[in-house]
């Protein structure tokens, strides 16, 4: 895994990607820092990172677009997959390399905090919390990007889809406010989830029995829940979106609170996406 990590990290700086990512990130964050803090003389630094979330939407696709798609296009995956390294080593190595580039870039922005601390009153706990949250949030976005990069051979396609996925994640809180919250739409949403799950099981097993059982079981659960406590369905769509919302959980970090559940959520989010990536690569060998 270390060899993969090292090569990948080297690759970021042998191609312009690493420099472009760092340059873009630091240019935009520097602009916002100057505008919000230097010019206005504001020492409220922990809000700074919250104001530059949108950089992720542009910068993370750059960082992850080549990651796996380029291996496939150049056929170098043939070298990796026929060598005594496991697929999880490959994926984790790549994830860590992208994370390291992000980490180093983020480290540069600590200089801004030092500036604020030198000439003003820096809220250290809040700032540290915001940094931890911001880093974890970045890791989640990188995990999404790597999964998308594994789905295509074309880095432009990968960048494009990563961009829209991140945009969706970013806008999820807005979407949450406009989705219908009544019971009926909650039930329809639950039914759609049940059907999707059954379809997934069916396509994986190619067995009508498994798919059928899944449909029946999810129907029974939906009906039972509706009979026992139909308020479950009130605002279900919004709640489900809120549950997967990455940005909501960032707020506690911003206040200097290190909430364990949020840290665990972010890390398991990464783990799930990396796991799916591994499965995608494994599955391709069979088809």
């Amino acid at each position: 895994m270390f060899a993969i990590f090292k090569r990948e990290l080297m690759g970021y700086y042998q191609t312009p990607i690493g420099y472009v990512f760092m340059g873009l990130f630091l240019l935009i964050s520097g602009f916002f820092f100057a505008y919000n803090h230097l010019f206005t003389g504001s020492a409220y630094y922990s809000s700074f990172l919250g104001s530059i979330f949108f950089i992720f939407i542009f910068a993370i696709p750059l960082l992850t677009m080549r990651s796996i798609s380029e291996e496939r296009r150049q056929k170098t995956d043939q070298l990796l997959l026929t060598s005594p390294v496991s697929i999880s080593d490959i994926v984790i190595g790549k994830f860590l390399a992208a994370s390291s580039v992000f980490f180093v870039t983020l480290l540069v922005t600590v200089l801004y905090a030092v500036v604020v601390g030198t000439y003003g009153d820096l809220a250290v706990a809040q700032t540290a919390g915001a940094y931890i949250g911001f880093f974890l949030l970045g890791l989640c976005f990188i995990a999404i990007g790597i999964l998308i990069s594994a789905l295509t051979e074309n880095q432009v396609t990968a960048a494009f889809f990563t961009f829209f996925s991140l945009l969706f994640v970013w806008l999820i809180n807005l979407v949450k406010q406009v989705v219908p919250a009544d019971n009926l739409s909650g039930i329809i949403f639950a039914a759609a989830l049940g059907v999707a799950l059954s379809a997934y099981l069916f396509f994986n097993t190619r067995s009508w029995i498994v798919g059928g059982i899944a449909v029946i079981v999810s129907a029974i659960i939906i009906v039972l829940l509706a009979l026992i406590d139909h308020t479950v369905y009130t605002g279900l769509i919004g709640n489900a979106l809120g549950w997967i919302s990455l940005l909501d959980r960032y707020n506690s970090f911003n206040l200097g609170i290190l909430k364990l559940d949020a840290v665990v959520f972010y890390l398991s989010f990464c783990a799930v996406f990396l796991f799916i990536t591994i499965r995608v690569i494994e599955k391709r060998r069979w088809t």
Partner: protein
Amino acid sequence: MIQVTQLSKRYGPHKAVDDVSFTIQKGEIVGFLGPNGAGKSTTMNILTGYLSSSEGDVMIDGQNILENPQEIKAKIGYLPENPPLYMEMTVQEYLKFVCEIKNVSRNETAQRIEYGLETVRITDVRKRLLKNLSKGYKQRVGLAASLMGNPEILILDEPTSGLDPKQIIEIRDLIRELGKDHTVVLSSHILHEVSETCERVLIMNLGKIVADGALDTLARSLADTSELVVRASGSKEEVEKALGPVSGIKTLTISDSPEPAAVDVLIGSEENTDLRKDVFLAFSAARVPILQMRSKNMTLEEIFLHLTNAEKGVE
């Protein structure tokens, strides 16, 4: 060393490899021969663990590749059809990376790299970026990379493609040399390349193995007829009449010749019968002059065409 049983690979409804079985002993040099799309590369990709088979098993050294992939992959050096190079790296950096992922120990790495560079003669380009190398050099870097882990088995997919004639001869000599202490499986669609390097050939067509054996044995078993090509000055009728008394003719084809007032005659006979004298005397008696006469042995190309076309006819 390598044992493949009833291997199949499906891409949707299309069967790229169809029920293929073979065994390769330690130390053999085996050539996979077949037209494009015959399933050679797919078979090799399955042998090396890059792809998984749809059906059937691959056993390397008595172990199933699915059950013990890491250990088996360490024993195999693979040169795919397109050498898997990271274009932004230099030759030396690339070989070092290959050593690392092939679990070559730190102390041996430098020595392995030197060995690789010297074996395929690319010492002079070691500091160059891979993207700036010519096709032939890239191919040789790929070959060097396949040697890095000191594998027992070498699987080479068209190892000489993109090389100039001098390099081809060098690489062939190298493969023969490597064959002394490695098991080598190589693929090619160039026939005499295989005949020069391999002791045994597996001819594939449309996903199936249509022949397996040493080349000369294959040639003999297929040559159930020997043929005689004659160019005679005369008409079709005259030739037919002239050959009437000759016994032992199995097939007779008469076609127009590029020369004026002459015909080309293709006479097929039973195996191990020599009709040349009889044919000469018969033509002479009928006063039809023979302009040319030669006996035709089945060449490698003809064996190949015979096998691959015969199969197509069945489909």
